[in-house]
């Protein structure tokens, strides 16, 4: 026997047999941590992440159903979804969704252009930054619904009101993020490109744009959520079309299924946009980081 091993097994207070059992357990737990597929073999599918997610979804539906059955005011899930189907059969479903989406596309395009230009100027030139920082902070503190009320008073029932409110309430969020991005551009690298006489266009393409795009898209994702909410608010307060107006229409008719149905639709559309467009775009802007990590390792 190896002398070292002999001393270890003779140490007082440590039973070598339980020690190995514990080791085996630890090993299994480690395998389970690293390989979820093997974990299932050990603990069964019921404790996996996927099962947890589905349990959560079913539990949410069950709680909603019970609350709907217990209280008169709360619509049940099936009443809400059958309302949505009814609305589709009446031909009133896609019209409002399309109207609101169109407004969002116009408004958010303006937000993207304005926010990126202003944010870039603020990040690059310090006099502009100091001139506008307080104004931008105040604009962020302003809630969209006050802008919505003002816009309805100013512009009445028009296409201007929703787009105006979308721009004023979403642009500051994008500005703040873009400004951070412009300030995060590596000074050493930009000095080096100046020393080696790299053209401004090349520097912008290979240094400024990759750094800023991540910040821009992170900010734009927040701006999309803010702008979407703002447009819905204007439509509720004073507009003759769109999803917000439709929800308000059913509120006036005291149809709670209708209100909640349209609320669910608003949520579905924004979550869909976030999942299908914004998150993939954001991951794309982060690709170069992963590549850089690979290059270094």
């Amino acid at each position, binding site marked *: 026997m190896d002398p070292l091993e002999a001393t270890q097994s003779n140490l007082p207070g440590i039973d070598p047999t339980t020690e190995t059992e514990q080791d085996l357990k630890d090993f299994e737990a480690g395998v389970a941590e690293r390989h979820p597929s093997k974990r299932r073999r050990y603990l069964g599918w019921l*404790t996996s*992440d*996927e099962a*947890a*997610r589905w*349990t*959560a*979804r079913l539990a*949410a539906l069950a709680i909603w159903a019970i609350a709907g059955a217990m*209280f008169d*005011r*709360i*619509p049940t899930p099936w009443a809400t979804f059958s309302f949505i189907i009814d609305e589709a059969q009446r031909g009133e479903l896609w019209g409002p969704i399309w109207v609101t989406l169109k407004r969002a596309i116009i408004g958010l395009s303006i937000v993207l252009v304005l926010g990126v230009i202003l944010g870039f100027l603020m990040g690059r030139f*310090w*006099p502009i930054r*100091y*001139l*506008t*920082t*307080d*104004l931008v*902070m*105040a604009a*962020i*503190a*302003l*809630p*969209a*619904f*006050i802008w919505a*009320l*003002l816009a*309805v*008073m*100013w512009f009445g029932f028009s296409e201007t009101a929703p787009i105006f409110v979308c721009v004023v309430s979403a642009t500051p969020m994008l500005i703040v993020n873009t400004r951070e991005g412009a300030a995060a551009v590596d000074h050493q690298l930009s000095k080096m490109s100046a020393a080696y006489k790299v053209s401004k266009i090349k520097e912008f393409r290979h240094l400024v744009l990759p750094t800023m795009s991540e910040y821009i898209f992170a900010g734009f994702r927040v701006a999309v*959520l803010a702008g*979407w*909410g703002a447009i*819905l*608010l204007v439509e*509720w*307060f004073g507009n003759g079309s769109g999803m*917000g107006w439709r*929800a308000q229409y059913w*509120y006036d008719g005291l149809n*709670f299924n209708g*209100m*909640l149905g*349209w*609320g669910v639709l*608003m*949520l579905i559309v*924004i*979550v869909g946009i*976030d999942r299908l467009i914004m998150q993939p775009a954001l991951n794309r802007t982060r690709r170069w980081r992963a590549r850089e990590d690979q290059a270094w390792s």
Partner: protein
Amino acid sequence: MSTPDYTITPGAAVRLRVQDYVVRFFKSRRLWRTVLSLAGAFAFLALWDYASGNIWAVYILPSPIDVVNQMKQLVEDGTVWSAFWATLRKTLYGWGAAFVIGVPIGLLMGRYRYANAFFQDFVYILANVPLLVYAVISLVIFGVSDTGPAFVVLLLVLPAVAINTAAGVKSADEGLLSMSRSFNRTPLAVTKNVIFPAVTPFLLAAGRVSFADSWKLAALTETFGGSSGIGFELNTSFELYSVVDALAWMFFFVIFVILIERILLLPAERRIFSWRNPGEKLV
């Protein structure tokens, strides 16, 4: 040949020092920062003042002076204080409930992978709900009441509280945790002495980030179905078609948000974080 006299008279020394001070003062960023930020605010006010009356009629865009006068009147009435307090009270109720429910959820999420996966979807969905939908939920369930705003503030704040608690639990010192395991401390004692101190700064961060949002939501819900508070006052001014009133309330709103952030939350955060890195200046 006489040597030139290089001694400095006391008067010249003072003059040089003042000169030096003035030069440094004008070169400092801090001065420019203050000057430019004031200049920005004044330029904005001047533009606004020019626009009202010259570009748009006064009843559409009242001048800043009109708005300030209106604000003065509202302060003298006492309307501001009662409305401010009504909205703040509802927000605080929502926050209290969010802490009571969110902290245990966050502790579970930080500790167990199953809980993390279980609450993942809820947290994601609740963070993406447009504010109008929250207001609609409040209207559907509670109608015109004071419970509605508090309830939706709870829904809005809950994800932030849960996520930050979970992050705090994960940041807890592994060494301390394994030491308490080997000394057979009870889970309660571990939670109290190791986990809670790790979680507190994260909770404070959650509070600072989502306070402004929750305050906005409370006011919005009051606009829809409330009988008191800033949102209610705004809705009244909307129905009376009074832009002056709406603008006055808008400025009160900004002032409140900034005051609460600067006077309450920032110093509290500084105090709680101060033990961590005493030398480092906090942003």
